């Protein structure tokens, strides 16, 4: 069987018929070609697949595409506006907040959600807010710096 879904992805309407079991992350990556959301685990812990669902950071590997029916989804591909990098994207670039880059889209979207909730977090709040995203390269030191950079730019 398939389920018909309608949603908005990065501001554009999308309609599709999906198998019920299709995970949102596979729908985004394979059906829509939005490969920015990555898959790093299968236990909902690494956060590489993080997207914004109606503004809230969620793990797209732990959602059926069918559950996203009617929702508005933002992926990393939709974060830059009018060709201008988002301050978080700038921060990660400026502060060397990434190495291999695989965790980065999820990390940036989680940080985006964090800053929406708390526009000027301290170090501890940043570390607590991003605990759902694993990075194996950076030791997180510069990720904290990148988020602080963005918070300053956005204030």
């Amino acid at each position, binding site marked *: 069987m398939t389920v018909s879904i309608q949603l908005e992805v990065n501001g554009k309407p999308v309609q599709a018929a999906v198998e019920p079991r299709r995970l949102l992350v596979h729908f985004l990556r394979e059906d829509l070609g939005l490969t920015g959301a990555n898959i790093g685990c299968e236990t909902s812990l690494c956060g590489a697949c993080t997207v914004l669902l109606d503004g809230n950071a969620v793990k797209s590997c732990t959602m059926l595409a069918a559950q996203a029916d009617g929702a508005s989804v933002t992926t990393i591909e939709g974060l830059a506006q009018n060709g201008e990098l988002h301050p978080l994207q700038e921060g990660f670039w400026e502060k060397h907040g990434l190495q291999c*880059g*695989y965790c980065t889209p999820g990390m940036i979207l989680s940080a985006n959600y964090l800053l929406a909730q708390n526009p000027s977090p301290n170090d501890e709040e940043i*570390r607590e807010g991003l605990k759902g995203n694993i990075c194996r390269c950076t030791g997180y030191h510069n990720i904290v710096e990148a988020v602080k950079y963005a918070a300053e730019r956005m204030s």
Partner: protein
Amino acid sequence: MARVLGTSIKRREDPALITGRGKYTDDLKAEGMAHAAIVRSPYAHARIRGIDTSAAEALPGVLAVLTARDVAAAGIPGVVPVGWLLPDLVTPAHPMIAADTVRHVGDAVAVVVAEDRYLARDAADRVAVDYEPLDAVADVVAALEDGAPAVHEEAPGNVAFDWEIGERESVDAAFASAAHTVELDLRNNRLIPHAIEPRAVLASYDSSTGEMTIHMTSQNPHVHRLLMTLASLGMPEHKVRIVAPEVGGGFGSKIHHYADEAIVGLCSMKLDRPVKWTATRTETNLTDAHGRDHSTHCAMALDADGRITGLRVDTAAAMGAYLSTFAPAVPTYLYGTLLSGQYDIPAIHCHVTGVFTHTAPVDAYRGAGRPEATYVVERLMHLAGDATGLGPVEVRRRNFVSPDAFPYQTQVALAYDSGNYGPAMDRALEMIGYDDLKSEQASRRDNGGKQIGIGFSSYIEACGLAPSAVVGSLGAQAGQWESADVRVHPTASVTVYTGSSSHGQGHETTFSQIVADKLGIAPEAVEVIHGDTDLVQFGMGTYGSRSAAVGGSAIVKSVEKIIEKGKKIAAHLLEASAEDLEYEDGNFRVAGSPDRSLGLGDVALQAYLAHNYPDDLEPGLSATSFYDPANFTYPFGTHVCVVEVDTETGSIELLRYAAVDDVGNVINPMIVDGQLHGGLAQGIGQALWENAVYDESGQLVSGSLMDYAVPKIHNLIPFELDRTTTPCPHNPLGVKGVGEAGAIASPAAVVNAVVDALAPFGISHIDMPLTPEKVWRAVNS
């Protein structure tokens, strides 16, 4: 012209990666692409009585189900080879697909190819394998016991090799006359690399040309192509192209050649269409080569002045079920040779037994042998500080190789080219505020409650495995040089083709800085190409902290050749003698006549037009070089960790971590710091959290992120870094390597800190990872 070397230029790799445009292997699609799912053994050891694939084949959308029988029918070599041979190494065959016996949980027994990845998994579940479970042994010590289940008939007692270095007799003599001796039984815990991108491959075979393109998660595409074609698929090497697109971390795990990638290649050949396989985290954890897994007895002898007189090390090192690509080298040439540390030790002996176990293979993982060696030496130094009463700082200082003793020949083969160990220790003490911490510690000891500890690790590293003739004599089936092809275009922009293969290290940025500096042009005018066997000629790849020292030096060599040739062209155009020309800031100038000069662009254009050109020169302005280093490079440093231990629960909190590293000259400080941060996280992870645990039946019980604790952001702290600079004397950049330093130094620093905190409880050692329960039990025993 602004300085380029030594500058924190932002990474050119990043714009694609921060916008989601970077393409990793699983992001790629090919026309007609099918998906593979691999059927794996649920048993650590079992005989395969039979495999029934009919139910899987009957599922609509399933294209093929292959087993060992199909590998045999294909008439291909069908094995996964080991690439480093030791004397008397036992080398049992490692079939791509297990034929009659499985030897670890995750061993491949069949592969299913289907139109869709969900469907492939459905079909894999329907492959019925009839197993006869056999006794298994997963523990490295248990595997050596009499009567332990045999992993391979060819390896009696499960011994893969027996290796030693140094002089046993002189060590025995040192112990016989020692004023102090310290000894330790320790485990170096088994680790799962956890590159955040699981391994993946997209193989596209085209029968009309007989060519196959393989996109895969690789740290060294040429090495993968060589092993894949020669030992596994039996294809002509020139008909196979391997491309490493964006690679999401490796840490060693993507150096090795695995069965899975070869299996997918075979599927594509059989079906004559592209086939993709992406490991799930569970699969990648079951099959990626793991790291470490040593059981060691070690002892140190010291004289009455606290000078080390002897070091004795006996290690059982797990190899896992099969010998992985570089596995035999890791606990031998990358371990035993590092045991002199930063110290002048007159007698060292190290004996290593390589042991087969019914587990995933063990191979190079960040640091590869050197973290294990550093851990042994630096744990013993901590104990020696106590035993001699000198304390951790003075006992190290007293034994440092003196700065005027370089080059320094150790008793374990390596000759340190350079070093100056005292200043790094001085700086680390200053950064951490050692005296204040000692008073704070004393007052906590008086008052009870949470205790603090300060741990040191003064490490030595050997990077850029070299030279080729030496590694060849030691059993490597590969050279350890690197290639670089540098091409200056007619408009004076440059493309570099390097055999190094970046997977997060920022080679494109760093290498462009090298070329920009040497040619006096803007880094933006330099393109760096890597990771594609069709574009780049044979190279060795990225591992062992070798890229800057070896790959970077190859680039310098090519640039020097280009400048020499450019001088000849410029001399012709300027009607001067080439010997009189000098090259500076992008211009060829006649010495002493500043008006007579030509820009690189003028010369490059003429090199390609070749209208007005020296008779004895070939057109073009490019150069290829193979740089074979004269020696390893020897980074070093001192790290200090401060922890707080909750003795009531055994919980450990990191309070401070200061690291002073000497990695030689630095090309991009931002990238160098980032490499250190990442290495520190992995080393601290090993010390406190990470542990690959197999139960007695050989099941991996920490196979997912639910049980295997990769460091998370809220469990780590900011790192305090500084550097001293002792340039490498034998490569043109004076660089040494930095990728592994953090992982090498930090486990000992953390454990020494915890043991220091618990000194009042009479605790001298706890095995990693220092879980709260272990600490609590130690405190209460």
